[in-house]
């Protein structure tokens, strides 16, 4: 199989997932497309350094996330504020509330969550990655990733319910 064909196959396989990851991080279709292109561009230059072919997907996601963070730093809009949500206040959001939310609202709510928390949450929802794999993609300890997902999820559900339906009592 030629290198061009291999590259094309790889693009076909992962561009959708990467684009959606980028879209959830940035909230912008143009930025998501740019991030996806940039990720594959980096792959074309450095992908041969990857020793384990099984971790191509994780490599691509890590690269896209890294490029996203670089962009945040360039634009000086990096926010690492913590989410102060307590596990005792778990929201009880009915599934129909999530079903009624449109994608645009969901992206807007995600955009309001601090970057440090948004990426693990997006990977938690969108990709079939284990917690360990999510931790590897983001270069964070497993415990940190789980804690961030939990707190970000509470915030997402709370904001979602404020937008659609009131939170039911626990």
């Amino acid at each position, binding site marked *: 199989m030629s290198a*061009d064909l291999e590259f094309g196959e790889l693009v076909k396989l992962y561009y*959708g997932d990467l684009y959606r990851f980028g879209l959830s991080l940035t909230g912008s279709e143009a930025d998501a*497309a740019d991030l996806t*292109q940039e990720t594959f561009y980096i792959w*074309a230059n450095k992908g041969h350094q990857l020793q384990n072919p099984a971790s191509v997907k994780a490599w691509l996601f890590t690269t896209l996330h890294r490029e996203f963070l670089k962009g945040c730093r360039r634009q000086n809009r990096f926010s690492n504020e913590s989410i102060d949500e307590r596990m005792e206040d778990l929201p009880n*959001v009915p599934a129909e509330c999530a079903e009624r939310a*449109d994608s645009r609202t969901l992206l807007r709510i995600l955009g309001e969550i601090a970057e440090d928390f948004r990426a693990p949450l*997006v990977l938690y929802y969108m990709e079939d990655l284990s*917690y360990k794999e999510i931790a590897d993609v983001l270069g964070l300890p497993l415990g940190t990733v789980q804690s961030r997902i939990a707190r970000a999820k509470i915030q997402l559900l709370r904001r979602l319910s404020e937008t659609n339906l009131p939170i039911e009592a626990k």
Partner: protein
Amino acid sequence: MNTREAKEILFLYRGPIDDSDPQFRAALDYAKSDPKLGQWLREQTKCYDALRAKLRGTEPQPGLPDKIVRRRPIPFPRDWSRISQLAAAILISASVTALLMKWSDRRQRPVFAAQEILVTGEVLDMTCYIASNLSGPAHAYCAKVCIRNGEPAGIKTQDGKVYLLTGEPGQSINTKLADYAAQVVTIKGKKSVRDGLAQLQVEEIRKL
């Protein structure tokens, strides 16, 4: 484990994808024995599925994959074993060339070992002497200033041979020589010659 603890653990449970994750096992077992918790778990899993479907439902622009493939940089295959072979060949070749050049240089331009001699003659400001043939008492003041300011100094013997005067390596002797500019002195020093240029490393100066 109580219901609250099980709920906190299961808050991150996503469904079948997490079934093999041991951290959920005990809490899932507990939920089987607690119908209310089981109901909550089903609802939260359904909620997860709904949000996942929304997020995964967005389709990228139609031309994006083609754009990515077109923008792909031309790969430059790097065969590191060949590159290191090439680097070694260049290194060996450069070393051999340098050695040959040095050997050739030594053959063509012999260097005579320094020998101690006594030379008597006029102290010159070499810049003015070589460029304008200026020397003698009429040029004494200029020579003094030039030598003091760091211009090269020399000595011209009565038989017309000229030596460049220097101090010990790294040490200027110009201040001392400036006092003898255009005067006839005897200098004791080490003579060495390269490419036809004679140099005298000054050890002692005596005015006649």
